[in-house]
Each structure stands twice: as structure tokens, then as C-alpha cells.
């Protein structure tokens, strides 16, 4: 083999290796951006006329081959379209490759505040669990060693009844919408 051929083979090999690395990371990035989530259940700690306290479990699945760090998590909670609270999580949560993590969203509110804010009647939605609809709207950052996806949107809507008795069919993994 002439020196020229050897040099050509080395350059060709390097180009091939670089291309494979780029293809691999592009695939992982796509999987990362398609990380899916759903509300897997919850606990109602209190359900009264002057205090409602609920924990919702948001399950996030990492389908990529890379470990992800979730951070900068912020969620706004709406009850029957009325804003009740904002949840900020000042921590990092690690999701290993092909694994999932449960993000606990604790919130409480005083139904009297909803009445004051314009809701006509709180009693029917407290006592009919299908009528109490909770919307979670928020975002988080997902980061691997080299890639950060900022403002990954999270949007879920669920009734109190579904929280308390999640149906297996209802647990459909939801992909990023943006």
C-alpha cells in the first residue's frame, strides 16, 4: 500500500467514524425529544370545602440510550380551567436509559378562592369526581452530557376520578407536542 492510499484510508475511516457518531447522537436526540409522559396516578390527601390537597404522579420515560437529567421543572395547575397554583421543583432528577421516573406534584388550594375568582359553585365539582378536571401545564429541561432540550412542554388533563382509579388504557404515553 502506498503512503497516499494509507492516508486516504485513514481519512475515509475517520469520516466514517464521525458520520456514525453524528448519526448515533442525532438518533438519541430524536429519542430524547420524544421522551414521553403521562399521569400514572395520585393521592387525594384532603377534599373539603376549604382545603383540597392532592399529589399527582407524573411518569416520564426515557427511550434513548443516554441517561437524562431533568431540571428546571415548572408546572401550573388549573382546576376546571381556573389557575390554582404553580409548582416549582428545584432539583435534578436522573432517568437512566430505557427507564422512567415519577415526578411527584404536590399541590393544595382553597376552593373558596375559586369561588371568589368567579367559579359559580364548588360543591358539584368536589362531590362528583368526574367533574373536577385538573390541567397540568408546564415545562422542564432535559439534559444529557452534550445536549440540553430546554422548555420541553408538559401538558396533561385528568379528572379526579381518573387520578384515583387510573385505567390501564388511559396510561398512554404522551409525546412532546411542540
Amino acid at each position, binding site marked *: 500500500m502506498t503512503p497516499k492510499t494509507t492516508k486516504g484510508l485513514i481519512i475515509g475511516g475517520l469520516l466514517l467514524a464521525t458520520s456514525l457518531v453524528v448519526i448515533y447522537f442525532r438518533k438519541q436526540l430524536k429519542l430524547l425529544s420524544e421522551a414521553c409522559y403521562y399521569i400514572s396516578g395520585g393521592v387525594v390527601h384532603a377534599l373539603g370545602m376549604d382545603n383540597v390537597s392532592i399529589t399527582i404522579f407524573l411518569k416520564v420515560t426515557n427511550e434513548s440510550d443516554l441517561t437524562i437529567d431533568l431540571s428546571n421543572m415548572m408546572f401550573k395547575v388549573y382546576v376546571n380551567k381556573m389557575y390554582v397554583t*404553580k409548582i416549582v421543583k428545584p432539583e435534578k432528577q436522573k432517568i437512566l436509559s430505557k427507564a422512567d421516573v415519577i*415526578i411527584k406534584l404536590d399541590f393544595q388550594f382553597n376552593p373558596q378562592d375559586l369561588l371568589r375568582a368567579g367559579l359559580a359553585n364548588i360543591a358539584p365539582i368536589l362531590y362528583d369526581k368526574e367533574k373536577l378536571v385538573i390541567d397540568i401545564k408546564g415545562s422542564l429541561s432535559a439534559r444529557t452530557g452534550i445536549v440540553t432540550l430546554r422548555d420541553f412542554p408538559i401538558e396533561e388533563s385528568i379528572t379526579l376520578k381518573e387520578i384515583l382509579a387510573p385505567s390501564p388504557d388511559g396510561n398512554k404515553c404522551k409525546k412532546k407536542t411542540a
Partner: protein
Amino acid sequence: MANISVSIPLTQKSFYDTTSAKANADRINNIIKPKYGKIIDNISKITNVPSELIYSFVFIESRGSETAETPYAVGLLQLSPATASDVLIKEKGLGRLEKEESEMLKKYLGGRYELIANVKPNQKTIGKTFITREDLLKPELNLLIGSILLSQMINEFTEDGKVRLDKIAVIYNTGRFSKVGKEAIAHSGTTDELITKIPQGQADYITKLVGKHSLMEGIV
């Protein structure tokens, strides 16, 4: 840390009305974010302190003025040189100083970084102030050290998975060794109960940060 959170508002009491809350959000989104947004996002990423919390403290402490100075504190997050020095020593002593934080500190402190590098595990002070007022006028360094301080407080004042931002507000404002600071640290009741026990200035700090129409509620 495991699954910690803070739900806002922490109290229904408010310092701002809806009009001033909107004006505050406008100032943050139109003035502070364009100027410091990239730095704050990066620092939030490496310190793990939510960017909203950093923006809120920047707003309350300096209204986004990097040259804000009092006899005691300097810059965007109004830090004193002594506090800033102790924060960095403590962070290193706790073994929590991340690589990216170290790199940033080396960039600004040069040879003085050695004082931090030589800190032993669990060491809390070196009895020396090595951060200057001039250092703290640099926005990125000020934001980094202030955010590290906030992360230390988040770690310390998380109770049953809930971050006590009310206590953090009081201690950030008065210091942990003040009478009010000690009272906040020892407080075991609700945010509303804490507000009734402390002077108006610190009560206002809490409602500005985490009350109804507060900064934390209004950003994003």
C-alpha cells in the same frame, strides 16, 4: 435531593396588586431577561436553582441593576464580599462545587481560586474575605455565587419535601445570625404564622416572593 417542590403561592397575602404584578413581569421579561437571560439560564443549569427563583431575587434585590450598591451588599443579587467568600468555601467543603462552577470561578478569580481548591471536606470558612466588591459587580460572578447561596438554602430549608421559600426569603434578607433570621430558622408553623411573627420588611419580602401576585407566581 429527592422529589422536592414548592407550590406557589405559599400564602394568600399579597404585596403586589394585579397591576404591579403585571408591571413586574414586564420588567423581568422585557428588561432583565434580554440583558441577563443567557447568563441566568446557564447558571440555573449548572447550580440547579430554577431560573424563575433567580429572576425573582434579582428583581427584589436590585431590580436588575448590576451596579446596585449599598454599604453592605453589591450587584444583582446584593451579596457582601464576606458572605460570597463563605458561600464558596462552604460549597467546596460540602463537595458540591461542580466542574462548570469551578471553571467559571477560575475565570474570574484567577490565582485566588487556589484558596477554594485547597478547602478540606466539611470546612466552612478560611477566616478570610477573598471576594471583593469589584468582583461582585460582575454580573455572571454575582449571579453564580448568589445562586450557589440559594441552592445551599434550598438544601437546608427543605422540610418534608417542601422547600420553605418563606424562610429562605427572610434569611436571604436579614442573614441567618440576625434575631429575625434565627426566628425564621426555628419556625415550625405555616407561612402565614411566620408572617405574623416577623417585622413588616421581612413579611413583605415573603409576599413579594411567594405571596399572591408574587414574582414567583408571575414569571412565565
